[in-house]
């Protein structure tokens, strides 16, 4: 009974209800929204954002932010694609460690800059957003890597083959979600991420290795953006220096924030972020179906983010009020 109550009171319930209500409404207007074909559209939209969102979630819980994930994705995807173009004989699976490694290094650089120069992460990663994008242009000579250079088996991982129940990129995303869940809830380092974001002043006083935790979350975020990068090449079959990953950071951060991760740190769950990504996936699949022109879609995204933040703030305020009225707290 108590367990059921606490389940219903969980923050994630709100998002789940929002997803269901949204799907029912859109389903009534356009029944095709609930057709299997459309569910597949959503399923293919979700994995890349889901993977990067897991990293972004950890960064936000630690009370930082990573704006550079889109550019990191682009750079890692471009370097991996260049490798395949220059060395066509390399087995396709070696692309994974390369992409993840490059992404992790870029993330590590973000974290190191935040730590060494004591700069806010929003400034550092705004800088590297442009820096990493610029490096992508330089490395590629501003030229797109076309379909023929992307290994066939890599492209097949995104194939919607009827004899497979789930495409590989969906399975990889699920694996990342499960690993992140384990890391966040059951590893020491994961709990220290929550502690750091919950009270950064107290963290060093309680022996939390602030530098190690910060470097870890940024490296994970970068590494997962790198993974999303090679999967981008798999999903779309090309890598373009200006398009690939452009604006991706906003979708990722939007999904994470909608998923109930507090931008003030310390709060957030994998389940919430998964639901946040799914909600964003539903919204983006519904907009074209409802005949809403592409030009308006960004505005709708923006509205969804703001509504989510308003809810986040309201919940937080109510919590604090309950805390202070519980007993006469002196100022």
């Amino acid at each position, binding site marked *: 009974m108590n367990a059921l109550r606490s389940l219903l009171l969980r923050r994630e319930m709100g998002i789940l209800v929002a997803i269901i209500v949204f799907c029912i409404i859109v389903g009534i207007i356009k029944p095709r929204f609930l057709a299997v074909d459309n569910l597949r559209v959503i399923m293919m939209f979700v994995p890349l954002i889901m993977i990067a969102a897991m990293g972004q979630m950890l960064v936000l819980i630690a009370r930082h932010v990573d704006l550079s994930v889109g550019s990191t994705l682009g750079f890692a995807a471009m370097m991996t694609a260049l490798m395949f173009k220059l060395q066509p004989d390399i087995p396709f699976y070696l692309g994974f460690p390369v992409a993840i490694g490059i992404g992790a290094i870029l993330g590590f650089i973000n974290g190191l800059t935040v730590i060494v120069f004591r700069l806010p992460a929003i400034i550092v990663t705004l800088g590297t957003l442009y820096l990493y994008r610029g490096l992508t242009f330089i490395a590629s000579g501003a030229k797109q890597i076309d379909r023929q250079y992307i290994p066939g088996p890599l492209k097949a991982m995104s194939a919607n083959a009827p004899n497979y129940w789930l495409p590989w990129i969906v399975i990889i995303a699920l694996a990342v979600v499960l690993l992140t869940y384990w*890391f966040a*809830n*059951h*590893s*020491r*380092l*994961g*709990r*220290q991420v*929550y*502690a750091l*974001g*919950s*009270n950064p*002043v*107290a*963290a060093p*006083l*309680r*022996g*939390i*290795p602030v530098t*190690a935790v910060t470097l*870890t979350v940024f490296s994970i975020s970068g590494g997962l953006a790198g993974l999303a990068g090679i999967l981008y090449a798999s999903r779309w079959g090309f890598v373009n220096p200006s398009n690939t990953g452009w604006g991706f950071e906003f979708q990722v951060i939007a999904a994470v924030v909608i998923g109930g991760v507090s931008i003030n740190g*310390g*709060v957030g769950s994998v389940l919430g972020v998964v639901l946040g990504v799914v909600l964003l996936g539903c919204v983006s699949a519904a907009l074209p179906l409802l005949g809403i022109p592409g030009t308006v879609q960004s505005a709708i995204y923006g509205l969804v983010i703001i509504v989510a933040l308003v809810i986040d703030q309201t919940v937080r305020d109510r*919590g604090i009020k*309950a*805390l202070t009225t*519980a*007993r*006469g*707290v*002196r*100022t």
Partner: protein
Amino acid sequence: MTDATAASRDTPLIAARGISKSFASIEVLRDVDLDLKRGEIHALLGENGAGKSTFAKILAGVHRPTRGTLALNGTPVEIPNPIAAQKLGITLIHQEPISFPDLSVAENLVLGRTVGSPLGRVPWAQMTREARQLMDLLGVKIDVTRPMRGLSIADQQMVEIARALASDSRLIIMDEPTAPLTPKEVETLFVIARRLRDEGRTIVFISHRLEEVQQLCDRVTIFRDGNKVATEEIANLTNADIIRQMIGRPLREYMKKQGTTIGDVALKVDKLTLPGVFNDISFEVRKGEIVGLGGLVGAGRTDVARAIFGVAPAASGTVTINGKAELITQPSQAIALGLAFVPEDRATAGIFRTLSVEENITAAIPKQIAPNGIIRRTLEKTLASDSVRKLRIRLASLRQPIGELSGGNQQKAILARWLLTNPSVLILDEPTRGIDIGVKAEFYDMIGELAAGGRAILLISSELPELLALCDRVLVMSEGRLTANIARADATQESIMSAAVPRARVAA
């Protein structure tokens, strides 16, 4: 039992020798020698700023002493940071405990003590079990799986005590733990403190409540102006003895109250109440009168001032200014009625650090300086330089950022700002805190002149000599209530202090 252990029985747990501490050039602790025995509850007493908290923080590794040595069980030790203190078995429990509000109680208990690889598994089940055992040991009912956020302060303190036990602390320092607690919670805390003492642990108890100290502690050490005055068995001291030792310093001669004529009531406060903060506060301040508001930090004096000024309005009661009773809910209203408030915390509530002295001085009169929204530079400059001359503010240039001035001169600039609004009632909250003696004397002269000019002044101060020398009357607050209204002729350090010290809330 061998001779060695018998000898170590008598070795104090902590032996501090010649401990001194300076911040910038101000010495806040001077050559303190102090022994803490095993299995005692030792009170540290003193006025605000006497050095007791600084000493406690040195033991806990928050501050490092400028000079002096510490020995633990006879062995010299360095305590460079709080983690080192914890490893040595020393835990400081802050009045408002430091915690990780989003983590569970059990996690807060073990945090910082876990060993092993970073990717090691968190033993949730074992952690929860151990946390429950600790709570049972303390006899408190707290669900260890719930988050810290939302726990009462008393419960948060219990979690901190449990944490000290989990790391097997031998010295537990409690910095004014009872201030935010209800009587019942205080009782529970005392039961636990005594039990910990009986187990052979040492407790350092910092409190302003003498009755509590009498009831709980074995020995007391009294601090005054950064010096240790005495360490005594509590049985040998009465409250009157303690108060005398806490305040026994000579009155400073240079403070002379100027004779002024006292006129009509300028500020009248009637039954002002903000539940949980202050209750039923009524008083008057007349033109030309300086009324002191004394009491200990946390007695609610600043809260009353903030309520009068509309920063954090009271829940009920009225404020009448020059005969006009109005509900003041915003500072701008208070300013329009002729009220000015120089806040205590100049760094956060007073100055605009990066703006120039000139802009800071004219900040409260935007309409006068910029009638059409455009700043009249010449007027701004004239007003500012007049103020600088009148108040003898020492600076390099009017365009200098105010943050570069000394504390005393910053304070003068803030006073200048409020004087430009031509207030009839001036509330000064600890105006001389952190200011050099020389500038202090100038301030006292200025306050006297302002009163002589017909302004009503409410002076909040924790410095008894200041209240005695300047004020026509002294009001005293304790725990949110007015406990005394003492005429100048009857005001002494003892009469103010005994009204300021809270009554014990624990039934004996």
